[in-house]
């Protein structure tokens, strides 16, 4: 680079530099000046050349380049001064520096003076200084506060290492600053370490935790309640580097507060909660209300609560519902939200009572399966069995802790209060404070116990209500499914409600019955039916039962009509239960007949004596007379004897018919039975010269009364013998058909007229000159008594065929 070029460069720098520059000789004559000097001189730089510097700056007294140059001329050194003055109403700071310029001999001939405007820098510096002094002042003040504060004020880095520790902290926690600095926060009980970490995590996100009530541990190990406020500590860059924690011992305050609040509010809370619950009879809703009251801050303030109910059938304690959070995170979120929403306990109670039931929480699901057998010896079962509450501070130290709760719910300390209703334990409330680790105090227990008593009564009511609801549904089902007709009628005969049986019996859908007048739908009448018991029931306000024949419905009915009253006791109509007893009545009539016959049988024995005995004497002595008399007298005696015999015969038949038959069944060989009958009548058959065609099938076992059955068959055979006359044929066959033993008796006799056939089993029906007409009636009855049947085929003058069917399954049953 040549000199000319350097010269040029110097000139450029010289002209463009922001500092004003002048060069003076020893006489302070200005040799050169740059353009920046114009800021101070307010004259063009060229005007300054060769002027006396002292003149030029005379009007700017606070800038004195010659003063600076003078020192440099004298000392030969660079000299710098700060000059302050007013310029156009503002304070200006100028920094003047004089640089000596020497000639070849080393003598200072000239000086270059730089005038730098340092106003901004100086003002800024002043501000900093002012701030600094303020900061120092404040710091002192703060430190004073910190040091003298009754609150423990501690700062720590994000790892929890203590960075400062005030006197308050020393007083409250017992540790000296020296003991804790550079150590991990010493005052956090192990049990809430998790919670504390959670707080630190939140601080890392810039949150401030205000007035949280928690637990702290002193140097001597005592745990006490504090209210803490934790705030992030930021570096100048804004980065969070630690936190401060101000804790206030609130044990005393808490105690006083509790005493006051508990005494004054306990009753009102209980009153509110229990009155809210008493109004809620839906068990599920009630349980949720109970547990919400237990877990809400406004309520009992526990973290988690489970309601156990005693299942008497299984003899276990069963979880009915659980309320609480599943994790710390969830707990904090929800607590945060609740405090934001500012919902009071009564708001939430109202929501539960009126809103739709929310889905079960995860905790609820987690706890629901839990069952604790009452036969086991655990804290929960003891609470139930001994009817007293338990407060377990540490599950590890309590051997009877409920293992299932520790394992499944992670509880470390809990309390249990039995639910006692009318001196009976119906369940228990279990609570813990897993998330904030707050110990459960005696006050909590008192409150919990008092609450439990109210809850138990409410639950018992709700259970009763639930049972009533179930019973109502059951009644409704019964009402619908009952085969009797059931219906409600208002006082003015309008059908209000009916069951299915009514619409079935009337053959109409319920819409066509309800709302109509009862006499129209039930009796087809235009005005009330005279026999209707409804009117009488309404009139007398008493239940009334009547048996009526209803020609419209075509049957006999028992109507039970009862008055119904509204809650004020006013009669509003009747409920009627109608049984169709048409069939029953028929049966009943037959029963009455049978009873009459039985009664007849009772007297028959006595009557027989009264009649038969005289007949026997009469006939017997007539016969004796007959032997001893001759001629007409002998004939008369014979007539008497014969007529007596006839009377005896009639008596036997009649007595045999009315006699109460007692069937004595036994297992009988079918062929032997038939052979026995044939033996009885053999003499008659032989006497008349009747051809007997006997064809007996494979013998089977019959379970019958052999005497009665023989009598039945004998009557048919006797008729056959009488019907065929001499040289006729009687064939008797046996076989098995349709699970019945069949005896077929066929004769070649006179047969039965077609018009007579339907009557042959009727009592006293006979076409014969002899006999009572009871034979076939008795046969028919005996067959029926054996659950058998008789078939008859007959053609006049060709003969008759009788088939007696005796069921075989009775034999199988017997065997």
């Amino acid at each position, binding site marked *: 680079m040549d000199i000319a070029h350097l010269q040029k460069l110097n000139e450029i720098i010289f002209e463009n530099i922001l500092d004003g520059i002048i060069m003076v000789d020893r006489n302070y004559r200005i040799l050169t000046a740059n353009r920046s000097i114009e800021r101070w001189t307010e004259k063009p730089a060229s005007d300054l050349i060769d002027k006396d510097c002292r003149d030029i700056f005379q009007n700017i007294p606070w800038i004195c380049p010659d003063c600076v140059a003078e020192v440099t001329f004298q000392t030969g050194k660079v000299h710098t001064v700060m000059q302050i003055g007013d310029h156009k109403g503002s304070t200006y700071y100028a920094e003047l520096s004089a640089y000596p310029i020497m000639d070849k001999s080393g003598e200072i001939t000239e000086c270059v003076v730089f005038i730098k405007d340092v106003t901004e820098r100086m003002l800024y510096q002043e501000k900093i200084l002012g701030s600094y002094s303020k900061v120092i002042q404040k710091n002192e003040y703060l430190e004073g506060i910190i040091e003298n504060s009754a609150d423990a004020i501690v700062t720590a880095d994000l790892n929890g290492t203590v960075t400062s520790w005030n006197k308050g902290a020393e007083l409250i926690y017992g540790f000296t600053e020296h003991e804790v600095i550079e150590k991990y926060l010493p005052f956090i009980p192990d049990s809430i370490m998790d919670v504390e970490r959670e707080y630190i995590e939140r601080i890392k996100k810039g949150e401030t935790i205000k007035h949280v009530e928690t637990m702290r541990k002193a140097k001597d190990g005592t745990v006490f309640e504090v209210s803490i406020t934790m705030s992030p500590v930021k570096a100048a860059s804004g980065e969070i580097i630690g936190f401060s924690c101000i804790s206030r011992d609130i044990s005393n305050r808490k105690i006083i507060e509790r005493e006051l609040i508990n005494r004054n509010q306990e009753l009102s809370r209980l009153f509110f909660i229990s009155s809210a619950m008493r109004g809620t009879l839906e068990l599920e809703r009630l349980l949720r209300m109970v547990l919400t009251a237990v877990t809400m801050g406004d309520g009992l303030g526990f973290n988690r609560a489970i309601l156990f109910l005693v299942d008497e059938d299984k003899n276990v304690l069963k979880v009915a519902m659980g309320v609480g959070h599943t994790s710390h995170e969830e707990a904090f979120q929800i607590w945060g939200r609740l405090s934001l929403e500012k919902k009071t306990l009564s708001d939430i109670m109202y929501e539960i009572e009126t809103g739709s039931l929310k889905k079960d929480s995860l905790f609820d699901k987690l706890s629901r399966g839990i069952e604790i057998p009452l036969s086991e010896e655990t804290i929960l079962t003891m609470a139930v069995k001994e009817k007293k509450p338990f407060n377990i501070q540490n599950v590890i130290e309590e051997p009877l802790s409920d293992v299932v709760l520790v394992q499944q719910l992670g509880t470390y300390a809990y309390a249990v209060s039995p639910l006692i209703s009318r001196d009976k334990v119906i369940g228990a409330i279990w609570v813990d404070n897993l998330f904030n680790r707050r110990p459960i105090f005696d006050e909590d227990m008192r409150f919990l116990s008092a609450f439990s008593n109210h809850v138990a009564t409410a639950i018992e009511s709700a259970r009763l209500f639930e049972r009533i609801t179930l019973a109502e549904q059951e009644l409704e089902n019964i009402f619908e499914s009952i085969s009797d007709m059931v219906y409600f009628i208002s006082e003015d005969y309008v059908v209000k409600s009916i069951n299915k049986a009514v619409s079935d019996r009337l053959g109409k859908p319920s819409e066509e019955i309800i709302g109509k007048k009862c006499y129209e739908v039930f009796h087809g009448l235009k005005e009330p039916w005279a026999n209707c018991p409804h009117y009488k029931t309404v009139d007398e306000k008493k239940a009334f039962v009547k048996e009526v024949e209803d020609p419209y419905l075509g049957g006999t009915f028992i109507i039970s009509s009862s008055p119904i009253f509204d809650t004020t006791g006013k009669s509003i109509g009747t409920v009627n239960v109608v049984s169709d007893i048409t069939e029953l009545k028929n049966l009943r009539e037959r029963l009455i007949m049978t009873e009459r016959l039985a009664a007849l049988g009772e007297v028959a024995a006595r009557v027989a004596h009264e009649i038969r005995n005289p*007949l*026997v004497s009469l006939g*017997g002595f007539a*016969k004796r007379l007959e032997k001893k008399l001759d001629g007409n007298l002998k004939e008369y005696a014979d007539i008497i004897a014969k007529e007596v*015999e006839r009377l005896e015969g009639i008596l036997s038949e009649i007595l045999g018919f009315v006699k109460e038959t007692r069937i*004595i069944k036994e297992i009988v060989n079918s062929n032997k039975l038939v052979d026995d009958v044939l033996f009885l009548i053999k003499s008659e058959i032989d006497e008349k010269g009747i051809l007997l065609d006997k064809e007996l099938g494979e013998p089977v076992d019959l379970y019958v009364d052999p005497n009665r059955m023989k009598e039945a068959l004998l009557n048919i055979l006797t008729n056959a013998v009488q019907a065929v006359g001499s040289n006729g044929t009687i064939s008797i066959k046996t076989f098995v058909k349709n699970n019945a033993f069949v005896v077929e008796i066929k004769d070649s006799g006179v047969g039965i007229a077609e018009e007579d056939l339907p009557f042959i089993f009727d009592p006293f029906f006979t076409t014969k000159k002899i006999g009572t007409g009871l034979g076939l009636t008795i046969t028919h009855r005996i067959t029926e008594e054996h659950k058998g049947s008789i078939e008859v085929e007959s053609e006049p003058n060709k003969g008759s065929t009788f088939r007696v069917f005796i069921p075989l399954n009775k034999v199988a049953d017997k065997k």
Partner: protein
Amino acid sequence: MKILVVDDDMHIQRLYKEELEEEGYEVVIASNGKEAIELFDSETPDIVTLDILLPDVDGIRLLRQMKEKNPKLPIIMSTAYDYRDDFAVWASEAYIVKSSDLDELKSTIKKLLGKQ
């Protein structure tokens, strides 16, 4: 052969007595249970006809008492009413319904005494 007839009807007593004596039997008569047992012991009959309806005791009980005393002695139940379905009478050797025709009674007695 001695027959004990137990019946409370005096006409029947006489009828049986005359008819059976004509058949060659010795006949003793009892009108009630007490007499029947006394005569049963004192007269040692060969056969007994026994009515069921008696004034002091029912014939079934009498039948049992006599069977206890002498199980082999034949007893004919002779009644106005048909008790054949009553198994209690099965303990007797025979059962007949009283009739003005005494042939059945006579043949039964003959048959039972003939067996002995």
